[in-house]
């Protein structure tokens, strides 16, 4: 390694410096290659003739135009082996936990995609105990799903809970612009749960330069692929916060004079995000990568380019909302969706799952209409009143994020609520199921 560096040419004349990039005249340089400029890591983003443009991850503040620049002859990479487990690393894959340097095999990050015909259809349910997820938006291994949440919502807490209950072999945390407090929160939660040995974290906090964040998802997913492919493990990847990742993308594209598209995001935002999320996969040999991400919203606006593009890529989204009626945070049943739930509900769960889920959400919607009616000063019908009482109970017993019960109990709870407030005709479920599960009519 040192021998190789000895032969490397040192450039000392930068031809252009912007806030995120610098240029140098050089030849024989590969696209995507890494370089060290003035002690900072940089990557080739454009080559025109002999002009090479590099994005400097930690920013170009104080960078002189006579800075030393050395090309490393390789794309960003991570050293992987079993010792990666339990480590806390920075965006470059360097330890930040006072542990030894990584020694594993060096793998380029952002590697190739899985051949779609080699994928297996995701089919293992991930039970979280949270009914707002398990009952209404069931998660499956190999799925990719974000929380869409306003910054004040407890998404990091819910995500940590889900991660610990998910029974994954490895939990890989990719923190982008994570506040130091949240970083310490994750560390404590994992430590208290005695789960540190299955955690690997790549952390870029708010104190670190924003452009460094661009490396975090690929680092986390390269580690994930190692454990899922080579070790056939069930890997859960947590990415928080993808909005800050996208913001970093827009900084770089802006500095490169690209024409912005909607909301000042680069035109390639969809592809950039898809490349990350599509790493979620169920491998035929048993390993899997599941991605749970956070996309923070601004004022709940999901039409902004970041949540919008994300929604088209991911297999659903989970919304958190504070329900003032019960004073708790719930998983919003209207706007949340898990696209893969069909693969497991009624198959790995009880046959009535689909219908119980749909009917209760429809009744909850009736309650929302009744509420609007009431707010507009109209009298409520008997049905409206029953729907409202149902909604409160439903919110409290099933939607709240502090629930921890198994799915059969969730379904039974659903039937109990139906029976408490409605007649079988009002819930519109197949008669076969009503006869079997309606409280008091149960065959067994």
């Amino acid at each position, binding site marked *: 390694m040192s021998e190789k560096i000895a032969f490397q040419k040192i450039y000392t004349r930068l031809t252009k410096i912007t806030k995120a990039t610098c240029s140098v005249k050089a*030849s*024989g*340089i*590969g*696209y995507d*290659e890494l370089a060290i400029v003035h002690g900072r890591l940089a990557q080739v*983003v*454009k080559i*025109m*003739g002999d002009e090479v443009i590099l994005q400097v991850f930690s920013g170009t503040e104080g960078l002189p135009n006579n800075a030393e620049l050395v090309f490393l002859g390789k*794309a960003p990479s991570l050293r992987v082996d079993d010792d990666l487990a339990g480590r806390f690393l920075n965006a470059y894959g360097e330890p930040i936990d006072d542990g030894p340097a990584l020694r594993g095999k060096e793998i*380029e990050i*952002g590697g*190739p*995609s*899985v*051949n*779609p*015909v080699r*994928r*297996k*259809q*995701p089919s293992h349910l991930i039970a979280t105990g949270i009914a707002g997820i398990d009952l209404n938006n069931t998660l499956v291994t190999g799925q990719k799903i974000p929380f869409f949440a306003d910054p004040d919502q407890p998404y990091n807490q819910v995500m940590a809970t889900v991660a610990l209950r998910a029974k994954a072999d490895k939990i890989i945390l990719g923190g982008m612009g994570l506040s130091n407090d949240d970083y310490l929160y994750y560390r404590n939660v994992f430590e208290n749960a005695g789960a540190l040995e299955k955690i690997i974290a790549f952390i870029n906090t708010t104190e670190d330069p924003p452009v460094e964040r661009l490396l975090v998802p690929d680092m986390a997913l390269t580690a994930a692929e190692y454990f899922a*492919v080579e070790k056939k493990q069930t890997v859960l990847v947590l990415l928080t916060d993808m909005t800050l990742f996208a913001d970093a993308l827009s900084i770089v594209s802006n500095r490169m004079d*690209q*024409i*912005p598209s*909607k909301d000042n995001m680069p*035109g*390639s935002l*969809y*592809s950039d995000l*898809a490349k990350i999320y*599509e*790493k979620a*996969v169920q*491998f035929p040999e048993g390993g899997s990568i599941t991605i749970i991400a956070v996309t923070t919203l601004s004022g709940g606006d999901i*039409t902004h*380019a970041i949540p*919008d593009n994300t*929604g*088209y890529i991911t297999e659903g989204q989970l919304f958190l909302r504070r329900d003032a009626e019960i004073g708790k945070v719930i998983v919003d049943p209207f*706007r949340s969706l898990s*696209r893969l739930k069909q693969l497991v509900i009624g198959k790995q769960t009880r046959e009535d799952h*689909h219908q119980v889920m*749909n009917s209760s*959400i*429809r009744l909850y*919607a009736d309650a929302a209409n009744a509420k609007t009616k009431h707010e*507009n*000063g*109209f*009298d409520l*019908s*008997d*049905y409206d009143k029953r729907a409202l009482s149902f909604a409160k109970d439903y919110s409290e017993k099933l939607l709240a994020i502090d629930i921890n019960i198994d799915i059969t109990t969730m379904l039974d709870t659903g039937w109990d609520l139906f029976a408490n407030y409605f007649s079988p*005709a009002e819930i*519109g479920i*197949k*008669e076969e199921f009503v006869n079997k599960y309606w409280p008091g009519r149960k065959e067994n």
Partner: protein
Amino acid sequence: MPTTGIVKGIISNLVIVEADGPVAQNEICMIDLSGTELMAEVIKVQNNQAFAQVFESTRGLKVGTGVHFTGNMLEATLGPGILSRNYDGLQNDLDRLDGVFLRKGDRNFPLDEKAEWSFKPLAGNGDEVVAGSWLGEVTENWIPHKVMVPFKLSGNYTVKWIAPSGDYTIREVIAVLTDTNGNETEVTMYQKWPVKLPVRAYKNKTRPFRIMETGIRVIDTLNPMAEGGTGFIPGPFGCGKTVLQHALSRQAEADMVIVAACGERANEVVEIFTEFPELIDARTGRKLIERTTIIANTSNMPVAAREASVYTAMTIAEYYRSMGLKILLLADSTSRWAQALREMSNRMEELPGPDAFPMDLPAIISNYYSRAGFVELSNGKTGSITFIGTVSPAGGNLKEPVTESTKKTARCFYALSQQRSDSKRYPAIDPIDSYSKYLEYEEVQNYISENISNDWVDKVVKVRDVLIKGREAQEQINILGDDGVPVEYHVRFWKSEVIDFIILQQDAFDPVDRLTPLKRQEYMINKLLEVIDSDMHFDSFEDVSSWFKKLINLFKQMNYSDFKSKEFSSYENEVDEMLIEIVKT
């Protein structure tokens, strides 16, 4: 001598090549990345510089790398063995690529070169033929696959020799043709065609006249798709675009279904890979996979190949249409293709149009849609391509360039509504905003009169009016309150709810409800019109909703039961009793 060149610039997947000879727009060139050949397509030529979009990752590529130009545009390879295959956007057979991951530069020949096909001649010596004429036939899965005069041949030819019945591979010569000057051309069972050019080997394109059944009530009854027609499905994410497309691919009445998964989720393609070999086509009793070809260029696969994928899919559709078959082509999603165009346009620093999309986007989209259609072939037989694309409008806003450009060209509009989706009313096709222009076609109306009933179109219009009146009544109720409007308003609203729950809503996951044949749709519409036409009397608005909820529940049970089965009839009797009761009082 073929043109060669060297790489001068690299911006992501756009490569600028200095060429030493002639270069054509859309010509394919190969970039030699230390032994691995990267395929690229020329998308702009400026002096001796060719701007090429690379179909793979350019990581590690250096300025000064050698390039050779192939002299061909991107071509699809057409011959027996395309059915049931899973291709990528460049028509590589994904099942025959090694390894779990897609490796840079991996390519293969799309057809099986060793397989022998049992050939039966259809033409005889001395026959006059033109491009697209049927020379012979092999059986592919169950489709009589025609071996045709290559589309690239222009002018008139005479069959000099045709192979006798027997087993041949696709590379063996099965016919020799002579042109008017006496020059001979050998024909094999496969041919190549540049994907960006439409195949015009047909006599003429006629207006669609037949309805293509999909088994989806809100489409067949209210907004029918015509065989050889075009349509599009825009909708925000989570509104069920993909579920709807999958339902179409499973149920539509077509000889062959081509699914172009363009820049969408890989797991959705996996669903087709996994389920279609198991699912049975209700009409033919065969496995669905036997009639399906998938072109998968998922969102994480190279962006440039996304554009290629929709063209490859269309070219394969045109090839099979020339055999006199009914093809359904589905593309999910055309917005991703438009975004791929935008990315390249941006890298080439072209002046942007609205939302940074290229200025010629509307023209590109309408050219593409115009390749669908119902055609009469030179031998008098007919074939069709029905095309349905999905559009993923940014922010769910239909006033964005891709939706607007598509709306100008597609004849059916299936608007997915966020509101319907939020209240789980699936499929979330808005019955009032959506339209099918084909319902206005005289040809289609005649077909309907002959094949369904004389007054069908009137009934459909009536159903639509009930929905509009119901929506108006609902608005009044919301403004004035339940008891602020006459009971009659509630009846009007609930009549429209019956249509909504029983016709519009359909359970795509229920084995019976998911597919409703047109005959059954007609039966149910007639039944519902009895409800609509009944003069009902209620004492209070609360009685209205509880009576109708009970009615809807019975109708729903009918939808879940096999048509005219014992259960079906018993629920129907209950409905009839309810009706008699309410009209009497």
